[in-house]
């Protein structure tokens, strides 16, 4: 595959649950804006961190619609094993 065929790069912005402005969280590759939003959900909201996403490529801006909120962000809530405190490690072992 030639480099020119590479999926374009998108910048990802997430607005968290507490009403703060959209914040840049990183980037990823996607063939188009719709897919960039989906990829952003999978890559950047794995721990239920965001409620609204913007993806930006060059001069194009697309935003996820608020109605997407339910199915997209709820599932991460029960993945408690992603949080360090899920693993009970005795204090005497030291910081980890």
């Amino acid at each position, binding site marked *: 595959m030639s480099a020119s065929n590479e999926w374009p790069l998108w910048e990802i912005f997430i607005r968290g649950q507490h009403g703060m402005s959209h914040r840049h969280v990183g980037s*990823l590759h996607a063939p188009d804006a719709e897919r960039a939003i989906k990829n952003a959900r999978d890559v950047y909201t794995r721990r239920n961190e965001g409620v609204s996403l913007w993806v930006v490529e060059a001069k194009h801006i697309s935003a996820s619609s608020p109605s997407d909120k339910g199915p997209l962000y709820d599932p991460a809530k029960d993945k408690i094993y*992603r949080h360090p405190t899920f693993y009970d490690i005795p204090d005497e072992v030291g910081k980890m």
Partner: protein
Amino acid sequence: MASTENTELSEQEIAFQARIDRGEKIEPKDWMPDAYRRSLIRQIGQHAHSEIVGQLPEGNWITRAPTLERKANLLAKVQDEAGHGLYLYCAAETLGITRDEMFEMLHNGKMKYSSIFNYPTLTWADMGAVGWLVDGAAIMNQVPLQRTSYGPYARAMVRICKEESFHQRQGFHIMMTMSNGSGEQKRMAQDALNRFWYPALMMFGPSDKDSVHSAQSMAWKIKMNSNDELRQKFVDETVPQAEYLGLTIPDDQLSLDSDTGHYRFSEPDWEEFHQVINGNGPCNEERLNARIKAWDDGAWVREGMMAHANKRSAKKQVAVG
């Protein structure tokens, strides 16, 4: 190389170094010396490759995880490593190289990845040892890099470090369970520690006296601590953890120096290290071939999805929100 350049710093280079010394972050559009850019691409790219090649030895056990809980934990952990690779490739891309170019350099051997991932994972206890020791060593390398001089790299490291701590803990938790388990489980745990101890020590790189890029990288703050310093810190933190598990570090020379409060330990076999780096580790070929195969098999998928996106954007304009 760096030292000859240092003898005649241009005004721009002096100003650049002064910014770094003041603790300012260098951002993609800022002027930077070519060598700084090249070193960063090499370092971040290598780091990114390590994350995705690092998926393979642990991915080896996802299908054999012994319970549904362990399966989910391990899968989430290995998935995180893919995420780390993704963040780091993006950081490197801000320096003017594409992700596809970096993949190509991984595949043709022009860029390396951490030698630790060329060792095999043979039993379930290896999932414990890898999380505990390999992620433990990685964290020790990565935490200081959150303060590195290059902005996108530092920000990627902040995100990565936030995710890493569950990795080490899930590994240690497996080790705890195995060490408290049956005789066979305990034996597997000890065996895993025996095999991963020295490769984990190698993760900090060669001894400072033999390390090629160190001085310039430290001045540029793309390397924050010396190899030996971090290795010592790792040993000091890990030995008591092994004692807690009731496992023995495979090193006869290991002893606590009561004057310094640090452990004295045996150096890893650096000849083995160089052999593994140069392609002669037990799994070099499998690991690289697995990556190349995944990339080649995926070509039609990437091309197909891109072609569809192009067709669609030709048909309609995406609404600007």
